[in-house]
């Protein structure tokens, strides 16, 4: 039987954005699993100044979170140094798949819980190894509520949406 610290919780960009807007990033620590980030995703979240970029970078640093390196990010950096406009589409998903593949051949095997927003789960065709779980932010929050670690999962979602509306300086509809 695995011990909690041996389980890695790997949030995608979407869950980090949602939880950052809700001011609830620390909820990721509640189950006692090792919160781990993927280098390409962290870069995507912090490369531009956004309402949450500084908060996510500071949260990552203050909790000394491990950031897993990927060949995808190394290639991206290399391409960027040679070319001013490297391909960026789907790099986050490709990097996550790379990490899942590494979990598949890890010895001893380790459980990885990959956290995504609903739309990523519905669309992305990840090849998920047996020792990995693909779950949504909504499922994770409901799980915390079930465990008694969170009063209301719906309240977190509401806070994120309200903060998003308040923060949004984007013109709507955008030109």
């Amino acid at each position, binding site marked *: 039987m695995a011990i909690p610290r041996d389980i890695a919780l790997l949030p995608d960009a979407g869950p980090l954005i949602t939880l950052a807007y809700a001011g609830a990033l620390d909820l990721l620590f509640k189950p*006692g699993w090792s919160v781990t980030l993927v280098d390409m995703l962290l870069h995507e979240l912090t490369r531009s100044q956004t309402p949450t970029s500084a908060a996510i970078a500071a949260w990552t640093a203050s909790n000394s979170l491990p950031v897993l390196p990927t060949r995808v990010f190394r290639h991206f950096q290399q391409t960027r140094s040679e070319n001013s406009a490297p391909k960026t589409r789907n790099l986050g998903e490709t990097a996550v798949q790379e990490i899942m593949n590494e979990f598949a051949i890890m010895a001893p095997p380790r459980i990885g819980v990959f956290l995504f927003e609903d739309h990523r789960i519905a669309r992305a065709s990840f090849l998920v190894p047996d020792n990995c779980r693909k779950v949504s932010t909504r499922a994770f929050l409901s799980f915390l509520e079930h465990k008694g670690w969170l009063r209301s999962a719906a309240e977190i979602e509401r806070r994120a949406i309200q903060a998003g509306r308040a923060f949004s300086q984007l013109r709507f509809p955008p030109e």
Partner: protein
Amino acid sequence: MATTVNFTGAVDRDLLKRAKIVAAKADTSVNALFNAELRYLVETFEAAEAAGNQNFRVLLDFSLGRLAADEAMGALGIDGEEDLFLLMARAHLPMPRLSQEATAEMIDQLKSLPTA
């Protein structure tokens, strides 16, 4: 006074429960809330379409799960998930949702794991 007609639809059970609470707090009816939000959606869609702006249509298609995030971001000319999240919030459109059954299955998976 506009003519009203009845129609039959289906709604998420929990959402209806929350809508009833909101209606009670706002001293109105679920029917009035539904009409207001549907009017907002229809008028925003029509205004954008009349202006030759397809962005609301793109966001609506994403909300309904007919368009992937990358496709939506490409159509909107944005390159970050955060911008997409903000536009959805601004447009008063919900992010795409998986079914309650799919979510319940994932919750069960999490419950099977050891925790602190």
